[in-house]
């Protein structure tokens, strides 16, 4: 491992209102789910220590308010992000369609050095619900078209895939840090993950 990697990773969660950004973060960090219907003000953040490739890193997960307000938070908020998590609600097609603008918004505001290869992860949340409206294939297609963004289908309520998704997020964020280094086995792992993703789907169909 390269020594210059920092041990603090900044991860930003974006997506429309009420897709479950706060719930995902809470499920991952606190292993809790609340049925409360509650809009987030401004921004929250939580930290969690994770072990990635035998290394302890602190993940700093920034949850944003889906409301328009958040556009005013702007640059200061996005700056220095190591990974961006785009969340949509599989029962709300609009939240999926809006992923494009969330991604653009992030790239404009954060202006990362290498926008083409900046690590994004897409999460289709609320797969525990019956009235699913965005198919897995559609989502995967979109992700492939955007330079193979890893895609997971999650349920913050049931805790489905949440741990796995955030593991990938941590790895990719760390990889972003290591970009300048000799490429090691990380890229392979992305492919591995997107394959992992497929066996995950039958789980959803059970619901």
């Amino acid at each position, binding site marked *: 491992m390269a020594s210059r990697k920092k041990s603090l990773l900044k991860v930003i969660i974006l997506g429309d*209102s009420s897709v479950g950004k706060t719930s995902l973060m809470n499920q991952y960090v606190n292993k809790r789910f*609340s049925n409360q219907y509650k809009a987030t*003000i401004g921004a929250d953040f939580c*930290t969690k220590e994770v072990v990635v490739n035998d290394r302890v890193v602190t993940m700093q997960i920034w949850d944003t308010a889906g409301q328009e307000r958040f556009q*005013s938070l702007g640059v*200061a908020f996005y700056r220095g992000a190591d990974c961006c998590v785009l969340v949509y609600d599989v029962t709300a097609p*609009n939240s999926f*369609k809006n992923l494009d603008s969330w991604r653009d918004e992030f790239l404009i505001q954060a202006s990362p050095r290498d926008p083409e290869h900046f690590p994004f992860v897409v999460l289709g949340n609320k797969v525990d619900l019956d009235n699913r409206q965005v198919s897995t294939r559609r989502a995967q297609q979109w992700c492939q078209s955007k330079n193979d963004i890893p895609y997971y289908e999650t349920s913050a309520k049931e805790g489905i895939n949440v741990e796995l998704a955030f593991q990938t997020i941590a790895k990719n964020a760390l990889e972003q840090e290591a970009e300048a280094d000799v490429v090691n086995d990380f890229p392979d792992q992305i492919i591995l993950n997107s394959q992992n993703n497929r066996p995950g789907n039958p789980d959803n169909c059970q619901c």
Partner: protein
Amino acid sequence: MYKQGLELHTTELEPVLKTLSKPHAEAIRKRVIILNHTVRGRTKIRSKRKPDIRDVFRDFDESSTGTRSRSATPDSLDSIQVDDVWGTSSIPNFVRIFEENGESNTKATQHSQKKHLKQKVRRTPSAPIKSGLSPDIFRGSNMRCDIPLHSTHGVELVGYSRIGTINLARGRSGSDPACSVGAPRGERLRNVNSENNTSDDSSDDCINKLNKNYKQISKSDNECPENLLMTGDVISFENICRDTCGPDEVEDLSPSQKQYLDIVLLSEIEIKRLQSIIWLELATIFDRNKISLDRRKPYKRRRKEEGNLFGVSLSALIRRDQQITGTDSNLVPLFLENLLAEITLRGSTEEGILRIAGNRQKTEALYNELESIFYLKFENMDTFFSNYTVHELSALLKRWLRELPQPLLTNELVQLFYQCHKLSSLDQKKAFSLLCQLLPHENRNTFRALLRFLSNIIHLQNENKMNLHNVATIIAPSFFPPQNVHPIDKNSIEEQVKMAAICCRLTNVLITRGEKLFQVPKNLITESKSKKKIMRKKKFFQLEVMENSNENTAISTLINEESKTKNHVHHTVV
């Protein structure tokens, strides 16, 4: 009168003040003092007189005859002023004297204050004394403020403006232990916290964590404990909401037993007449809480209003409505009325109404189409709207609000609305009402229509899950646009989140108050009626003070720069 470089005589003032209630009179007095001071400053600048030793002694004479020279002895004053005239730096010395002589000023002097003082004092000795502020002026006052009153002009006036300015700065910085609002609320907050340990308040927890984490990350532990307390105070959104609702409602009615009259029942002339007394009442409340009443100058940016619906001022929209419909408008834009009616009809029971975003492309299409066709086909808007989901319509509503050339609460007042967060909850309610009554007619009616719409949605929260908290959170940025209400340091996320939380809390109160905001206390109405004559006189003062402060932006800016408070110009208003 000020135009002739004259100050207001106390004798002239007294008969006017006698007819007013004590707090009002006090507010006026203070402002007249400032006015006189500014006038004096100006005459000086005009005459550009060199320091004259005789002036120094004249000052000295005055001060020794003053019956109210409670603090500084003539000797000490004399020496200071002489020192100053000759340009030596005995200022810190002076400050010490000033403080030792006590008054009840317990605030720590800051460096900026000293500078401020220096500037003022240096000017003073050469001031030609046109009309001695006779000590009488303070006799009638009930001395509720802890402003040191010295009979020598320079000291006395400097004392006032100094405290005024510093209060603003420190209050805003959120670390002022003397801030009358913060401390007790903080205490209450802690109590509430301990009672509600079980509450699942994750987002607030996180924000609090944010504060702590921030300290860890930045490793610059500059924050003092009070600061933490204050930030925790304002950010713990729900606790404060819980805290401020309830018991105060009762309190609101019992002591005053005021009768109210709905503002729609008043004619425009009556409302106009009320304005000055409302300003006065507002000034009193702000003074009581030691918050300076900053009135922004009306916006003068001449931006061409290009759109048809979006980015067009309320008044322009209403003018247009009237042209097209040929009827008198109720001063709520037709477009907004249609939109609110449609959302209410189709969406009030929809889960997450207002919160859930529509499809952005569709919203964009709707936006463009409305821009071009609304005034052509406004009669069959219903069918047009029916092509879109309620979420797109609600997105449009928020967008329309955000794109207003002036915020709905107006450039002039929005900052005052924001400042209300420093007031105690009872005063805050009063101040909100007063501010709403100061809004221009179309803004007031539009705001009222919106509040009604919002409370209707909250009323149906069992179906749509949009409780007060959610609605306030979503709509707050539209009432307090980030371009108008934002921290000085735009890069401080902590500050931004804090302000966002405050705005949400204020919106919370505004929605809860709802119709009560538009009830004018009858006593104010009678006061304004029975004292038409005096009102005219007071209006005259008001005009003077306002014009004065406008014309003296140079001076006020100077003052502000010195005290390094804020980046906007301080206006005093009666």
